[in-house]
């Protein structure tokens, strides 16, 4: 039903879950992407250690997003997932290799290089696949009745592939700023330099995606460029410029925590921009969140639990991060 508060609450919950996923798995996938370029094998150990206690938890947000869609907007789950059959397969396989690499790398000695590669390629391809899924989602999905009606390769376009590349740069930026925060010495120096280069790449790519998107769908161009929207929405790109400047400055000044905060801010703004482009479409270009919502009895049943559980989850997430706070230093007791 149009305007239902319940549905709105669910949009907020799923939006929040997906954003949490992007931020949290974003930085640890980013670390995997930077992995082979690190200055030394010890640095690689530190990089992996900095996320080892939390990666599994970060990935759980991905399941929450998927399961939440299934529960609150089943038709979206039923249409979007088949449309992304092959990129999702790539993502799952990549996440499998990457996940077991954490486990196996330190159990291995002669075969360690295999798991180094698995960690890098797994992170890289999972990120690329997520970017492709995002891009092909923005460009729209062919629907007939309550089913996906397109082909198995509909997702494959220059735009979606470009989104894949852009997300790689984005996650790498998150990862490098996380490492600035959590490491010291040579690795940290390297991350300061890398984060600066990545910032430029990310800004260029976000700019291209932002200009490309309105050309895909007249409604999106209308949303951004009509009067008075163009004025009302102008703070979004302006804020991007401000945060990018802040990130650059903080890296210059050798600040440790601020860069990660600014990088998260940039992600939040890109996410907001995406939401502005698509709202209220849940399956672009035609199915809205109101049409896709599951009936009230389902949404209420879940919402009651969520009201208690999501805050609880956030509390023990905070606790878990707090337990593992502080700088991750050298590799103790390795051999």
């Amino acid at each position, binding site marked *: 039903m149009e305007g239902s508060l319940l549905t709105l609450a669910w949009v907020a919950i799923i939006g929040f879950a997906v954003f949490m996923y992007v931020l949290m798995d974003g930085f640890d996938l980013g670390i995997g992407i930077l992995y082979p370029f690190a200055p030394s094998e010890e640095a690689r150990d530190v990089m992996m*250690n900095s996320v*080892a206690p939390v990666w599994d938890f970060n990935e759980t947000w991905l399941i929450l997003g998927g*399961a939440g869609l299934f*529960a609150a907007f089943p038709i979206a789950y*039923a249409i979007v997932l088949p449309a992304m059959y092959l990129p999702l397969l790539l993502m799952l396989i990549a996440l499998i290799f990457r996940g*077991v690499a954490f486990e196996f790398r*330190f159990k291995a000695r002669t075969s360690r290089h295999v798991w180094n590669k698995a960690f890098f390629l797994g992170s890289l391809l999972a990120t690329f696949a997520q970017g492709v899924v995002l891009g092909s989602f923005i460009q729209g999905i062919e629907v007939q009745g309550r089913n996906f009606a397109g082909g198995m390769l509909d997702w494959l376009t220059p735009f979606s592939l470009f989104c894949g590349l852009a997300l790689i740069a984005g996650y790498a930026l998150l990862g490098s700023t996380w490492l600035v925060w959590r490491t010291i010495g040579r690795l940290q120096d390297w991350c300061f330099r890398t984060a600066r280069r990545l910032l430029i790449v990310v800004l260029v790519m976000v700019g291209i995606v932002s200009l490309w998107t309105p050309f895909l769908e007249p409604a999106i161009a209308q949303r951004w460029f009509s009067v008075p929207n163009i004025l009302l929405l102008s703070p979004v790109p302006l804020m991007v410029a401000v945060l990018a400047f802040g990130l650059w400055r903080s890296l210059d000044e050798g600040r440790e925590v601020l860069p990660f905060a600014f990088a998260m801010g940039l992600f939040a703004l890109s996410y907001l921009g995406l939401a502005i482009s698509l709202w209220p479409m849940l399956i672009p270009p035609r199915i809205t969140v109101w049409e896709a919502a599951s009936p009230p009895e389902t949404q209420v049943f*879940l919402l009651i639990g969520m009201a208690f559980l999501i805050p609880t989850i956030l509390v023990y997430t905070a606790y*878990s991060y707090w337990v593992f706070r502080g700088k991750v230093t050298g590799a103790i007791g390795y051999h």
Partner: protein
Amino acid sequence: MDLDPLLLSRIQFAFVISFHILFPSFTVGLACWIAVLEARWLATGNALFRSLSEFWTKIFAISFGMGVVSGIVMTYQFGTNWSRWSDIVGNVLGPLIQYEVVTAFFLEAAFLGILLFGRDRVPRGIHFMAAVLVAFGTVLSSFWILSANSWMHTPAGAELRDGRFYVTDWWQVVFNPSFPYRLAHMLTAMFLTTSFVVAGISAFYLIRNRFLEHARVGLSMSLALITVLAPLQIFLGDEHGLNTLKHQPAKIAAMEGNWEGGTRAPLILFAIPDNEAEKNHFEIGIPALSSLILTHDFDGAVPGLKQFPVDQRPNPEILFWTFRIMVGLGMIMLLVALTHLVLRIMGRLYTPNWFHRVLVACMPIGFVAILAGWFTTEIGRQPWVVYGLVRTADGVTPALSGGAVLFSLVTFMVVYALIYGFGTYYLIRLLKIGPSAPVEEEHPQAMQEAHRPKRPLSLPGESIEPAE
């Protein structure tokens, strides 16, 4: 050749879920066992329990990691290959899966980090609590997912309108008629599976004359649990079977290999069921026993496959045997339990080599029994995906091409074989290295500094491949 996306999707689902279920089957019990060891360590201060817990935690970490990654595949499988099903049942089953994520998955994931890496970073009590919460999370997870699965066998509390289910009563949905039986049967099966692995590994160490202290504790605790659970499981299985008889009689007929049905039905021990001829070949049975087991009366009437239309029958050619494998393994478990009891009373539990060899051979018994049981119940639900209401064929994604599914199926098979191979290899190496000697904590602070784990899901000093 025409590639059928429905058949291929079914094979793919069977493959990825069979692979996945092996890990929770083991880790649910293992998490509880670790929590118990931590409790005993906390209560007695005996360092043996701590070293045993650390050893099993390493094994847990590898198994749990493989369980997590193969589990993510499941969440997406529903939507990619079974989109019609997702749309039809989403209003009912979506929330159950979602509750599994928010009550169980987050709990497990958050406290697993503390359990594995936090021993020196948090007080003992918190570390113990982390072990308990991980165990609790795994059990909660079983609760929700089995509720969802049971609902597909015995749908309740919802009505079908315009091709989709709408919930009328959540209590009836969650606690649908087959759920309590399935939950009890599966949890017991998982604890048995873990117990047999612990017993087998402990026996292996006794045979090799290594880690004797650890091995005795492991052997004694696991066998004690098996002695309670093996008979209990047979009782629970019987209850579950009676519940199935009430709600899914065609499945029982196929499991029993019974075509005609009626009174004084024999318990068939051996047969080759034949769907074409609608009869069994080489049948050997005990007269009237099936009637007695199913109705508790020699003259009780039991269902036969011919009472159901051909297009509503599950396949007895498979079910007849998967069911017998499960029951046969259950009987072996009972035999092991009884033998152990005799040996324990004679005071010879830790001496006879032959019994320890039997235990080593029995290590995979729980896994095989669980797979056989799930094959029985799931193939027995066919041709329905929601029993009696929605056919499996109507659940598949319409836009799916056979080529795409074949590609994904082959990919999963290759990748899982690889991961499973490596995982098994590392597990075996871990077992060969064995637990570390118990360290009495004379200088806890110094020891903690030296041992502070910095490594992903690993504890110090355990690179398990020989150096180059």
